[in-house]
């Protein structure tokens, strides 16, 4: 089992609109990864859809770049969409 690659698992539940990252697991290939994800991550709640992605395919931003990437946006409040109420119907925007 040491040769099984790592997969990141994303699940969209009955009431959700977007796949959420729920964790990771090892599996020999994509089919088995879906099966394993179903067994490990949908035990207590209904899932509607499972995505599995090889962990090696995920590109992540580096924590050291946090300031350069995200700080500037924080200071520019005129860009933040917080000055008007969002109607009920589009709550999940």
């Amino acid at each position: 089992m040491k040769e099984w690659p790592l997969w990141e698992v994303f699940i969209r539940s009955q009431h959700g609109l977007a796949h959420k990252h729920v964790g990771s697991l090892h599996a020999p290939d994509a089919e088995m990864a879906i099966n394993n994800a179903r067994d490990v991550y949908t035990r207590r709640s209904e899932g509607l859809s499972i995505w599995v992605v090889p962990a090696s395919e995920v590109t992540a931003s580096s924590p050291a770049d946090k300031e350069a990437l995200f700080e500037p946006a924080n200071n520019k409040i005129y860009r933040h969409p917080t000055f008007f109420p969002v109607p009920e119907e589009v709550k999940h925007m």
Partner: protein
Amino acid sequence: MLLDDKSIYLMRLGDNALVLAQRLSEWCGKGPAFEEDMALTNTALDLIGQARMWLSYAGEVEGRGRDEDALAFRRDSHEFTNLLLVEQPNGDYANTVVRQFFFDVWHQLVLDALTRSADDRIADIASKAIKEVAYHLRRSIDLFVRLGDGSAESRRRMQAAVDELWMYTGEMFKADETEELLGAQGLACDPSTLKDAWLAMVHEVFAEATLELPAGEWMQKGGKQGRHGEHLGLLLAEMQFLQRAYPGATW
């Protein structure tokens, strides 16, 4: 008598699920990988749920005041009516996978037929169970193919498991008087009608798994009639110990 035959038939379905669930539970915490451990114990839980439904109904039909717990924990091995296949020891993982595969193909076919039973409750239980079993079968096939068409060692172990368990597959299709009577009434399914479909699927999966189908014709039987090997006694001793040592215990 029809009611006796009916309760026996229901008990067979319940016992298959119960004994196989017990076997799968023996892997709990000892699986070859965490993910496999979860998968096997999930399957076991599904089967226990099914066993509860079948045995509860069996107890009611039998009319001797035995509920699901009495049937599960206070019958001796000669009263158990499960197929011999499901009581076979786990062995190595290949053995467990092969046993599960042979059973799952049959299980799905039986449950599918039972969804059309003239008895509403049987049809209802079968409809619930078949959703779980559809997944069990899918997982079994996936594993069977990957281990069969895998490394030299995994294929060797799979072929050995196939050769050893083959003689227990015939019992799944050998109808006895009980099954013939209930089949005629439209309550249950005559298992001999399932053999061709079972073989067709097994052939297909074996081909993909690059494994050889055994040619042996001689088949073990007797489990459905309560004639078991030495394995069941040991399994029940472990499963029933708590209830027999502390009858009626709750926590």
